[in-house]
């Protein structure tokens, strides 16, 4: 492109402080250029922490880290900020491939914990070792697969658990290279033990993804659809944010697969745009930055069936932490979301 700036283009690779600074800078520029002469800027405050969108419930608090110890009443988690001790109540639940008693969790497991509403030290739900792989099957051998999740991510190894093989085969009958897959399971080192199908396999191959229907439209920058989640690709990746499948193709986003077109009905945005995401099932709202190109979200034109059928396919691929903070249950793969471009 003529006169196009060089430099970091995208997306998860540029996460962390650099991405946050770029988001803030772009917000400031945008606000300045649209401010009324003599008026105040309407740029939203970029403080860390409180992040409730207008007209919705506050997001849930979460704790993420490595489980150090667990007893029937207390669990201890090592987080980036130090050790956290959380109380367990009879209503606390845990997931480890299936719903389990909290005491079945094992030390050294990575956990994501959603805290009870209004309580800072009480665990409401715990997910241990949960992982997800979505993308194109690049190699398959019996019950082992290699899945390509995009140009900036490593290929993911998936092992189909024998106990879940029938269930997965019903929803993903074609496991040959070139077909699409989206599964949830337990992280076992670098591999994922697939246990739950996150959707049904599309009839088309990854190389034949179309732009989708152009009928569903946006209204004043607001659109509804399916919000899914993904695991952070690298340790330094921003823990909160959303990969958006219609990042402007001219941005040269490194994560985007050029052969897969942007969804027809979503407005073009940039990395750093802000989205107000509302979970239609819980009413929770959070304002999140676009941190990536949603390369895998472009591949699937599926609808979410959590609390009703979503009017269109995937509109945001949230990080695991944002998904949980918005009240989503990762083992259910998605929730119905209403997304507003902010501001």
């Amino acid at each position: 492109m003529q006169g196009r700036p060089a430099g970091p283009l995208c997306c998860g690779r540029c996460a962390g402080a650099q991405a946050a600074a770029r988001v803030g800078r772009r917000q400031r520029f945008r606000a300045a250029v649209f401010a009324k002469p003599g008026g105040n800027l309407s740029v939203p405050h970029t403080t860390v922490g409180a992040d409730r969108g207008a007209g919705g419930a506050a997001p849930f608090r979460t704790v993420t880290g490595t489980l150090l110890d667990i007893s029937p009443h207390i669990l201890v988690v090592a987080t980036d900020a130090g050790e956290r001790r959380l109380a367990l109540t009879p209503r606390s639940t845990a997931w480890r491939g299936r719903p389990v008693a909290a005491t079945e969790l094992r030390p050294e497991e990575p956990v994501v914990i959603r805290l009870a509403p209004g309580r800072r030290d009480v665990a409401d739900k715990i997910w241990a070792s949960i992982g997800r792989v979505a993308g194109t099957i690049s190699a398959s051998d019996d019950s082992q697969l290699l899945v390509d999740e995009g140009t900036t991510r490593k290929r993911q190894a998936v092992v189909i658990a024998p106990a879940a093989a029938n269930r997965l085969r019903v929803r993903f009958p074609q496991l040959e290279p070139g077909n699409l897959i989206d599964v949830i399971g337990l992280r076992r080192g670098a591999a994922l033990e697939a246990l739950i199908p996150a959707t049904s396999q599309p009839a088309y191959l990854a190389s034949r993804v179309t732009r989708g229907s152009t009928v569903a439209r946006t209204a004043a920058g607001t659109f509804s659809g399916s919000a899914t989640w993904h695991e952070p690709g690298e340790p330094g990746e921003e823990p909160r944010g959303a990969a958006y499948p219609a990042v402007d193709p001219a941005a040269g986003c490194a994560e985007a697969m050029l052969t897969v077109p942007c969804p027809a009905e979503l407005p073009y945005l940039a990395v750093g745009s802000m989205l107000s995401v509302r979970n239609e099932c819980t009413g929770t709202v959070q304002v999140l930055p676009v941190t990536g190109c949603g390369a895998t979200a472009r591949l699937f034109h599926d609808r979410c069936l959590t609390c009703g059928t979503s009017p269109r396919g995937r509109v945001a691929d949230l990080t695991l932490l944002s998904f949980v903070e918005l009240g989503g249950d990762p083992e259910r793969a998605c929730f119905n979301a209403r997304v507003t471009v902010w501001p």
Partner: protein
Amino acid sequence: MTIRHAIEQMQVPLLALVLLGACAAKLSRVLRARSVLVVLDATSLFPPRLRRPATMAVCFTELSLGAGILATSGRAWHGWAMGVRLGTALFFLIALCAMAELREFRPDLGCGCFGDLSGRPPGVRSVLRAGLLGAAALASTGGGELTLPPAGPAAALDLGILVAEFLLVAALSPEVGEMLARLGYAEPCELRAAPPHRALVALHRSRAWRRHGRLVSRDSPADMWRELCWWYLVYPGRDGGGECDIVFAVEVRPRRPAVRSAVLPRADQPPQEDLPQAGLEEDLPEDGTPGEGGFARPRTAAAEDVSPAF
């Protein structure tokens, strides 16, 4: 001619049009995508190896029945009319069952009955439509040979019945709403693909560039991105007070896009309230319209109690 006989006769053109229309809609989608895989909606209920042949069989059946109904409506092949019409009734009965199955087992899929117009999951209306068309096919078995009515009240009766039945089918078809929406649809600017060099060309021709271009210290923008209906371009520069950033917003519009600009001091950002005074300019089209990208502007009322997650 009795009203009953007129009703029985008018099912023939209705059924033929629906069947041929459904086949044409599917074929046009296949031709556009150059793959049968895009119309495997309802046939996703079948095992994978049967999906493609099942889709082709559905298309072929629709074409055969639609053409068959028309061909046997006259005197030439009228002996086959009963068989074709009963076959049509059976086809719509199977469609009714498939629709119910689809709602039960794959509620995320559209039926694909009329190509990509049927992208939404089928509702009760779609099931009722299949039932109505099946009943219409059964009713047509007693209609006999299709003849042109004499001009006058008989023709008006036939026409009235046909129009009423079309309206009834249309009322039961979610695809009609989608089709009308498409007919009146103009792609809004936020969905329009636009090459970024067009923004640069428009910027270099604008009054805002002539005004601030002398401050710019680099040929290419330091940052450039698109959000909704606007391209944003940031150039490093120098003004009397030191280093600054010159920000331009160029509207995504094929002709005479609006261009806005602002100059911001670079280092030690001032308090946000002071920023807008820093050389804010607007370069609207000569017709004075603010441009279709209006809603991309900050919404002050909603922004007050919100902070992003960063």
